[in-house]
């Protein structure tokens, strides 16, 4: 695309942009550097002092990571988070794609009304649901268990995921459905052989969005899983660390980076789907 002609000083434009970008990354750079510095150094001087001798590799170590992963239990929390996130991503997308397909291409009474109602549920803040759900969960004995939180994330994720998949699936060309119906394919065969393969781009964006939403979630994990080490997620564990190790920055920074590594890798690797997914998901409760 043709860039606009610049009518004010172009060097000041570049300067403003570079300063802005610098301010934006500085906090994260500080976190990353601190997480690799030995504890005595972290307490004695600011992280920026490493730039006095940038190639003096003795002032870096993996010690903080060893401590948070093995001793403080963030390795366990990382695995817990994976174990929470993967089913909490797959189940809602599976259920939502069935529903979206039916809403888009099947005829039944109340189709529009039910769909509008379902999407309207997007407005409900999670806080509105937590106490009754928690009571039901405790009656069922699934508070603090993984299946409980899988169900919760599925329920909370469904309105948005269904809506997004619906907009994509309903946009598929209708000829596709006429011709294959004539060929005698069942609705399920059409779903598996035509709808799902064609929806891969939409499913990819939604998967990334839902994965990140669950991975980064604090509130749902806090309420339905709690802080016991066997089930605690990274976000729950780290917010507990902030309370108990408030001034041990070498540990907190390493811990925070452990929780950020996977989202950042996804961000860098799949940027296009990523941005799409995030934009689509911005309205979620």
């Amino acid at each position, binding site marked *: 695309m043709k*860039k606009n002609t610049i009518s004010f000083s172009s060097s000041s434009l570049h300067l403003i942009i570079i300063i802005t970008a610098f301010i934006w990354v500085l906090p994260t750079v500080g976190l990353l550097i601190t997480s690799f510095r030995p504890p005595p150094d972290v307490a004695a001087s600011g992280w920026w002092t490493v730039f006095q001798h940038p190639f003096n590799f003795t002032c870096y170590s993996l010690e903080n990571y060893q401590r948070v992963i093995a001793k403080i239990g963030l390795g366990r929390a990382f695995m817990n988070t994976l174990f929470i996130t993967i089913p909490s991503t797959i189940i809602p997308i599976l259920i939502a794609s069935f529903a979206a397909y039916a809403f888009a291409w099947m005829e039944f009474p109340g189709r529009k009304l039910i769909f509008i109602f379902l999407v309207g549920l997007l407005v409900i803040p999670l806080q509105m649901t937590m106490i009754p759900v928690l009571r039901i969960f405790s009656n069922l004995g699934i508070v603090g268990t993984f299946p409980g939180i899988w169900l919760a994330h599925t329920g909370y994720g469904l309105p948005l995921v269904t809506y997004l998949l619906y907009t994509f699936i309903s946009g598929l060309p209708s000829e596709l459905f006429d011709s294959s119906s004539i060929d005698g394919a069942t609705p399920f065969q059409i779903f598996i052989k035509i709808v799902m393969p064609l929806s891969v781009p939409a499913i990819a964006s939604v998967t990334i969005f839902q994965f990140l939403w669950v991975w980064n979630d604090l509130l749902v994990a806090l309420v339905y899983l709690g802080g016991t080490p066997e089930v605690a997620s990274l976000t729950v564990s780290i917010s507990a660390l902030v309370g108990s190790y408030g001034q041990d920055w070498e540990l907190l920074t390493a811990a925070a980076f452990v929780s950020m590594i996977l989202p950042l890798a996804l961000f860098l690797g799949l940027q296009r789907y990523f941005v799409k997914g995030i934009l689509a998901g911005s*309205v979620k409760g």
Partner: protein
Amino acid sequence: MIHTKKITPWLYISPAVFLLFFFLVYPSIKTIYISFFDYNSEKFIGLKNYFYCFTNETMLISFRNNALWIAFFVPLTVFLGLIIAILLDKVKYESIVKSLIFMPMAISFVGAGVIWKFVYAYRPISAAQTGILNAIRSFFQLEPLPWLIIRPWLNNFCLIMVGVWIWTGFCMVILSASYKGIPRELLEAARVDGANEFRIFWKIILPLMKPTLAVVATTMTINVLKVFDIVYVMTNGNFDTEVIANRMYKEMFIFRNYGRASSIAVLLLLFIIPMILVNIRRFREQETIR
């Protein structure tokens, strides 16, 4: 449309409908109901919980703080997002800088909270400052500040800046797409006619982007009404930084007062609904324009 047996569509939608009923419809109705009852939902107490919400000091502080968040966070994210989008459109390395500014959207609010707590780290004047803000102050011979403790303006403002850092990239991406949709000839013509950049910004760019700006602003407002993680991690609402969502969590989990917690949740919903209505109206307007 495809031909199906009468029962088939219901089989496809029933898991979704059942789960939505179970996790959103039924609990919401129940929450409204128990907001009129006492702490363990046994005794009907009418509007007492709501009365509490509007008289209790901490609750009033939470309302004030959410209002502060709206007043600063929303204009800042939208304005910064817009300015950055427009400036970046003029340079070749646009996409790299965009990625850097969007990056905070990838990480959790908890992670962002730790990052910024470290930026705001405070130690007594005799010790070396390891938080970058206080190090900068020391460099200029100023006393270090306990940023997250000085109430009520500085600490709330510091928390709001964390939100701004996270969400500006989001606003930037949406506003950038909208900005690129403005016909270049329009801007060129105005320049040829001798209009300066600021005039073009106020008279052409802003009016044309108004619908998108409104949607972004309402989306940010809804976000801010529900702000929880940042406050929970960084101050847990201490030093007058309490917000509605964190208060609801405390009433529910720490004080076990389900009646009060429910009434706070209902108020949260009531605050959000007008924003959603504005968003829907904007959306309809745009549809009719097309």
